[in-house]
C-alpha cells in the first residue's frame, strides 16, 4: 500500500519483543537487560526497542473519538478495502479445508459426536449450507473445527450460494430454487422422526 510497507517485515526479534511485552507490560531497564542477555544475537535490535519504549504513553479506548487526518484516511481506505478483497482469508481457507475432509463415515461419526445421533443428513445439510444451523450447533461445530462462529457462519453462507442449482424437474408443483437455507425446525420436521427424537433435535434451537 505504501513504500514503507514493502520494506517492512517481521523477523524473529519481533516475536521475542512481543512475548516480552506481553509478560512485562511496563518493563524497566533491568528487565530489558535480562532480555538482551538472553538473546545476544538480537542485542542491538532489543536495545533499540528498549530505547523507544522508555516512557511510552499508551492509548485508551477514548482515542477512537479523537480528531484525526481525514484526508489521509480518505486517500488510503480504498487500498485497504482492495487489499482485503484480493487477499484470501486464511481462517476461511482453513475451515473450508477441514469441512471438505468430512465425508462418508466421518459425517456419521461427527454427527454422533455433536449429539445428532445417526442423523447425518442433517449434518450434511448444515455443512453444505442448505440447512440453517442453530446457534448451539454452530458454536459446537466452530469448536470441533478449531475455528470461530463468524468464520464458520461465513463459510456456510458461501457454501449455500455456491451450491449448483438442481437440474431435475419438480415432482410436485412449480420448480423452485431456495433463496435461503432451510430453517433447522423445518429440516428436523421433514425427517418425520419419532416425537421424542424430534424434540431432542429441536432442543438445539434453545439458546443457553
Amino acid at each position, binding site marked *: *500500500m*505504501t*513504500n*514503507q*510497507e514493502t*520494506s*517492512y517485515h*517481521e523477523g524473529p526479534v519481533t516475536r521475542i*519483543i512481543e512475548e516480552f*511485552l506481553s509478560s512485562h507490560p511496563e518493563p524497566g*531497564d533491568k528487565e*530489558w*537487560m535480562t532480555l538482551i542477555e538472553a538473546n*545476544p544475537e538480537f*542485542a*542491538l*535490535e532489543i*536495545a*533499540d*526497542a*528498549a*530505547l*523507544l*519504549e*522508555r*516512557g*511510552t*504513553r*499508551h*492509548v485508551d479506548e*477514548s*482515542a*477512537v*473519538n479523537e480528531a*484525526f*487526518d481525514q484526508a*489521509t484516511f480518505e*486517500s*488510503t*481506505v480504498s*487500498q*485497504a*478495502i482492495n*487489499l*482485503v*478483497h484480493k*487477499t484470501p*482469508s*486464511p*481462517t476461511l481457507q482453513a475451515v473450508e479445508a477441514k469441512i471438505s475432509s468430512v465425508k462418508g463415515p466421518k459425517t456419521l461419526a461427527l454427527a454422533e459426536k455433536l449429539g445428532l445421533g445417526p442423523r447425518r443428513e442433517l449434518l450434511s445439510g448444515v455443512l453444505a449450507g442448505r440447512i440453517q444451523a442453530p*446457534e448451539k450447533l*454452530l458454536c459446537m461445530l466452530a469448536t470441533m473445527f*478449531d*475455528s*470461530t*462462529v*463468524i*468464520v464458520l*457462519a*461465513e463459510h456456510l453462507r458461501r457454501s449455500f450460494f455456491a451450491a449448483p442449482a438442481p437440474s431435475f424437474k419438480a415432482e410436485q408443483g412449480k420448480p423452485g430454487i431456495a433463496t435461503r437455507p432451510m430453517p433447522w425446525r423445518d429440516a428436523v420436521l421433514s425427517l418425520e422422526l419419532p416425537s421424542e427424537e424430534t424434540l431432542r433435535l429441536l432442543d438445539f434451537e434453545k439458546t443457553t
Partner: protein
Amino acid sequence: MAKQDPKHEETRRVLVGLDPTEIRRRISVEDYKAEDYIPSEVLASLVRAHFGQGTGVLDAAVHALYKRLMVIVACFIRRNPQWAALARRNSDIVADGTSVAWLNLISDSSAVCFAEIRFLTFVERRTFDYMRHLLADKNQAEPDAGRPGPEGEEARPRSESVVDESEETQLETAIRKQLSVTLNQALVGLPKSERRAVYLRIVQECDWATVARMLRCSVPTARQHMNRGLEKLRGELK
C-alpha cells in the same frame, strides 16, 4: 486457540443471526459508549473472515476498522514525543504505520489473532514494531568511521576521540541523571551505532567489553561511538 472475551463472543453470536442491513447499521455506530457499538475486536473478526462479502457488510467493517486503526496509530505516535525524530523523517508515518498493521491483521493465519482479543494493544504493538523498524533503518548508510580496518585495530586513532576520559565520565553521570523525555528524544535521533553505544553504556551501565561485544566492534571503537553520541547529546543537557 487463543481465548476471546466472552462479551465479544456474545456480540459475534448475535451478529451472525442478524440481517446485513442491521449489521451495517451497527457498524456505523461511532460512539464507543453506545449500546449497539461493535467493539474493534469483533470488527477484526468480521474483516478476517471476509464476513458478508457481497452484502456490503465486509466493506462497511473494513471502512470502520481501518479508520479506528488509523486513529489509534496517530494518537499513539502523538502521545509519544520521544519518537519525534522518526516522525519528522517520514511524513507518511501514520499512513505507513496503519498499512503495516492492516497487512498484519488480514494476513495472520492463526485461527484467532491478537487483534480479535485486544485490538488496542495489537495496534500499539504493531506501531511500536514499525517504529523500531524505522529506527533500525535510520542512517542505514551512516559512516562507520571507527570500524576496525583490515590492517589496524581501528580506522580512527583514539587520540582523535572527541571527549577525553575524565570528561566522558562527567558526561556519563550527567546524562544518567537526566534521562528525560527530551534527552530520550535526542537519543532516538542519534545514528545507529552511537545511540546503541550510549544506551548500553549509559542506560544499561554495561562494561566496555560487553558494549563492544554487542556492537560487534573493538572496545576503542565502542568508546568512540559513545563519545560521538555524547557529544551530540551535550546540547540537550544545557
